[in-house]
């Protein structure tokens, strides 16, 4: 039996519907806010607990029942993150420095390799371009832990175990595909005709890219680099498998290493976790506009 359009498609919302919605508006708003607050508290509770623990005196950390408000305030835990017991630099501060070096270097490497590759994939006709791009993306399909053993064996042969270079290379390897894919979107948005015009002006193809297209890609590069940086900064699995010595170890395994043994200095764990989380928050805040743009693409104005 045939169904008429009127039956098949719901009738358009009639005019009195918005009025009804407005009447119930206040109650609806209250429920919405209430639910959001509950979710926010649940989500942020570990963060709040971490912040609190990091500024509590040790005896308050272990107090039962837990002291939410009337604890004794101290910054000793933060001092302990950077300064060793007997004076001098602490082991943790060394790990933070390693993290900065490894994350920074791998991000620079991934960007330097990935941006020109993205440009090439966007501009040139290549054989089996789609397949190549899919292959590049496929390296990100599996979780890192799947390949950690083969990588470990390869690194042992190459002498890259327990070296910062090893970590830089593996993080860059994970970030290059991501950089290519994200940057290709940005390059696609910049009309190729700017480069054509520049080449007719008398520039070479590379000059045309560097002087005319690259400046337009800066917001995209910033957003992509921050994503790569955050990945490298947070990475835990490779860091704990591939490094062992204090001189090489990055912050995530170093902080994890504080837990265990007979007593755990929760104040120190919390403080180092806060210090560890801060750079990511700051970076994300600095480029928040580009982050949204990067996620949605289409950030470059024509």
């Amino acid at each position, binding site marked *: 039996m045939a169904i008429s359009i009127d039956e098949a498609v719901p009738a358009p919302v009639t005019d009195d519907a918005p009025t009804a919605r407005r009447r119930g508006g206040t109650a609806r708003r209250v429920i919405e806010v209430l639910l959001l607050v509950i979710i926010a508290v649940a989500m942020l509770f570990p963060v709040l607990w971490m912040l609190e623990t990091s500024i509590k005196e040790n005896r308050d950390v272990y107090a039962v029942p837990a002291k939410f408000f009337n604890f004794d305030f101290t910054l000793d835990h933060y001092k302990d993150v950077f300064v060793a017991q007997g004076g001098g630099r602490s082991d943790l501060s060394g790990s933070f420095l390693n993290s900065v070096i490894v994350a920074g270097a791998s991000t620079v490497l991934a960007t330097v390799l990935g941006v020109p590759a993205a440009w090439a994939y966007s501009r040139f006709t290549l054989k089996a371009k789609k397949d190549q791009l899919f292959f590049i993306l496929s390296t990100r399909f599996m979780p890192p832990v799947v390949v950690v053993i083969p990588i470990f064996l390869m690194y042992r042969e190459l002498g890259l175990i327990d070296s910062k270079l090893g970590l830089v290379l593996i993080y860059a390897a994970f970030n290059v595909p991501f950089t290519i894919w994200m940057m290709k979107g940005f390059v696609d948005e910049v*009309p190729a*005709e*700017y480069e*054509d*015009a*520049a*080449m*007719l*002006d*008398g*520039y*070479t*193809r590379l*000059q045309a890219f560097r002087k*005319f297209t690259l*400046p*337009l890609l800066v917001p995209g590069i910033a957003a992509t680099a921050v994503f790569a940086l955050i990945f490298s900064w947070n990475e835990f699995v490779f860091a704990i498998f591939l490094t062992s010595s204090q001189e090489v170890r990055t912050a995530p395994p170093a902080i994890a290493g504080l837990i265990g043994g007979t007593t755990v200095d929760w104040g120190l764990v919390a403080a180092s976790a806060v210090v560890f989380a801060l750079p990511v928050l700051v970076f994300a805040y600095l480029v928040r506009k580009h982050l949204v743009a990067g996620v949605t693409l289409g950030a470059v*104005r*024509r």
Partner: protein
Amino acid sequence: MGTVQARGLRKAFGDVQALDGVDLDVPDGSFFVVLGPSGAGKTTTLRAIAGLEQLDEGSVHLDGRDATADTPAARDLAMVFQSYALYPRRTAYENIASPLRARKASADEISTAVAEVSSLLHIERLLQRRPAQMSGGEQQRVALARALVRRPRAFLMDEPLTNLDLKLRVEMRTELTRIHRSLGGTFVYVTNDQVEALSMADQVAVLREGRVQQVGTPTDVYERPANQWVAGFVGSPRISLLACRAEGDRLVGEQGWSLPRPRWTTAEDGRPLLLGLRAEDVSVETRGTAALPGEVYGLEPLGDRTVVDVKVGSEMLKVKARPTVAGVPGERVEVAVDLDRAHIFDADTGLALSTAGR
């Protein structure tokens, strides 16, 4: 100054054969228009000349020298893009100066040349603006200035007026002709607008589906179209084509009419032909020795003239008339035909039949 020659250009994009053996000879100092509908391969031809497109086959010669392997920069050409392609972060001044900077001109040379070309195009007041702060017409002038600031071998223009409104387009047509006359230089100009082609060109090459259909002066292309397709593409309103055959000294229409056979028609008897009549070569207002019987189908008043659609049997004939022409649909009319200006095409091949002697 220079000549541009294209020899057997072939280029495919996937399954689409964009260029299918394009030959062009652009003489030194000429205003050469490449005319064709969208998708004919005009832009690809221009980009191939510029060195922006890798050719599958064929060669490009500049000033007689094979430049097929040269980079765009080495070809010493200037191009105006349909989208203008002005550098968004740079002022008009910097945009115009870009070709000179790329070629390492001194600051003095640059400011002199930019001042000169901006006065030629009346854009002095725009020089400190960025593309986003300019109107389409202003951007177009800046794009033109960026090309004209140098004296390259040839200027390539890819539908530069397409994105302008009608009034501006008419203005810029005259302006471009003036610029070509005052600067000299070889212009290769791509357009799908036959009015631009007919009004500006020294020579027109008509392109269709990656093949050159005809090369000649605008008069050649309009008065002596090489084939049925060119006749249909050039001219507005469109040329009317009536199916017929030659029989002795008569031309007999499929729709039953009969006209004296034009002297110059060489077609053998019985061969299927098409009689091409332009709207201005037929009349419902005068009487002539040769006439077609028809009935008025509709009137299309265009202000300065009225186009009368006349039905001849089941075929439609467009007739240009004075704006005051009267007529009601269904009215029977005699259409006087100027047979000296008629075109005859072979219905199978579409080729014009011996129009050379005319």
